[in-house]
């Protein structure tokens, strides 16, 4: 099973680019974007709008990639592809997995924010 953790080399890379404050900005921006896009994906499921699901998953994939949240990146990439191909599948279940993957990395991201608070 794929481990759900942050690839810390990616965080180090962000720190090299813009320092600790920049990493904090990226993490906060990530939370805003991913939360918003998960809601967009859920709305897409409610209304049967596969394009909305695809777009939301695409955005989450990109944001997750920036922070090295590999499992979230992979799940959202799969959802993006499935929605693009218009597959007849239980999207509720997929979005639920996506949300769980996001929830699972929150403690680690909070830990990074805490380390950078000093």
């Amino acid at each position: 099973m794929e481990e759900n953790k942050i690839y810390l080399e990616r965080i180090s890379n962000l720190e090299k680019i813009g320092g600790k404050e920049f990493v904090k900005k990226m993490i906060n921006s990530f939370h805003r974007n991913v939360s918003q896009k998960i809601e967009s994906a859920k709305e897409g499921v409610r209304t049967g709008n596969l394009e909305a699901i695809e777009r939301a998953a695409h955005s989450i994939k990109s944001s997750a990639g920036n922070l090295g949240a590999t499992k979230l990146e992979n799940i959202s990439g799969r959802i993006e592809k499935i929605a693009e191909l218009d597959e007849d599948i239980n999207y509720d279940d997929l979005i639920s997995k996506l949300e769980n993957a996001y929830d699972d990395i929150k403690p680690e991201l909070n830990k990074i924010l805490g380390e950078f608070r000093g």
Partner: protein
Amino acid sequence: MKKIAIVEDNPDNRLLVCAILEDYYEIDEYETGLEAIKGLKKKVPSLILLDISLPGMDGPEVLQHLKKEELTKDVPVIAITAHAMEGDREKYLELGFDDYITKPIIDENLILNSIKNLIKD
């Protein structure tokens, strides 16, 4: 400072690109293709970073508009894409892009060097 425009709907990606480039270039940001087409005519940059997968009007469509416009037709455009398969470079060059970079942007030097190669002094 020379000006670079970034057309990208994901705010995290815009934040990252701005952080990489802001010490070297002035940056104009656009969230949608339509916004970019209107704005770029008024504030013509030295180079455009253009996301392929924009909502509504996608990157290639935006590029077509830019190439038809006198003010922007000669501005170099780098595609930003999540897809990096064999043959993709040729595909983007055929579409009219001058280069491409893949997301996630991990190596800042790739984007900086790509821009340096295309921006004329």
